[in-house]
């Protein structure tokens, strides 16, 4: 299977997500979709609110790892199709930065696949995030794993 481009400049719009869902109406062997949407949170850090996140990545490695994760998910779960999109550049609080969309004949495969995909992305893909606060100061974000 060829490599799909995952990283995209800017936020992922609700219209893009709706369009992606609509495209699957012709794939009538699918009986279950599951979607994960990551949204930029307006956290409060040292009394200041997060205005936006600026994402950067080691693009070539990130795309390789996204490809590996996709291949693993297709092997582990009985999926019909899967799409992953992640933002680069600025994404404002409240906007979507990650869209993961898994489709299968039945629900169990997509529930399990989405969790596997999202956890793997957070753990393994070299994406970096600068949280820019309302006064334009910033902090580097770091994923935490339970």
């Amino acid at each position, binding site marked *: 299977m060829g490599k799909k481009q995952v990283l995209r400049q800017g936020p992922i719009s609700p219209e893009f997500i709706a369009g992606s869902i609509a495209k699957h109406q012709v794939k009538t062997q699918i009986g279950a979709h599951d979607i994960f949407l*990551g949204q930029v949170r307006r956290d409060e850090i040292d009394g200041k609110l997060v205005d936006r996140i600026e*994402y*950067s*990545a*080691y693009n*070539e*490695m*990130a795309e*390789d790892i996204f490809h590996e994760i996709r291949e693993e998910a297709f092997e582990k779960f009985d999926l019909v199709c899967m799409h992953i999109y*992640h933002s680069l550049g600025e994404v404002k609080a409240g906007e979507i*930065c*990650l869209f993961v969309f898994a489709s299968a004949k039945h629900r169990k495969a997509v529930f399990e696949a989405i969790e596997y995909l*999202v956890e793997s*992305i*957070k*753990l*393994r*893909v*070299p*994406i*970096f*995030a*600068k949280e820019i606060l309302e006064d334009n100061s910033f902090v*580097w*974000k*770091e*994923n935490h794993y339970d």
Partner: protein
Amino acid sequence: MKVEVKYYGYIAEQLNKSESSVEIDEIGRNDLKAFFEGIHPFLKKTTFCVAVDKKVCNQIGPELEVGQIALLPPFAGG
């Protein structure tokens, strides 16, 4: 051996550069993290990993020709 090294996120910001060419000696090849901490002491106080040709790895085998090394701060995707 001389290797192209790329820097990302917090590390690039601290060094004020996104890449450089670095001569890595035999000892450095066996423990890349310690090697780069020696060059850039601030790395000792931060969490980072090394990628060799786009794979997370802390050493370069004697037979390996290396195209690119990257210093990666903690991941924050999603």
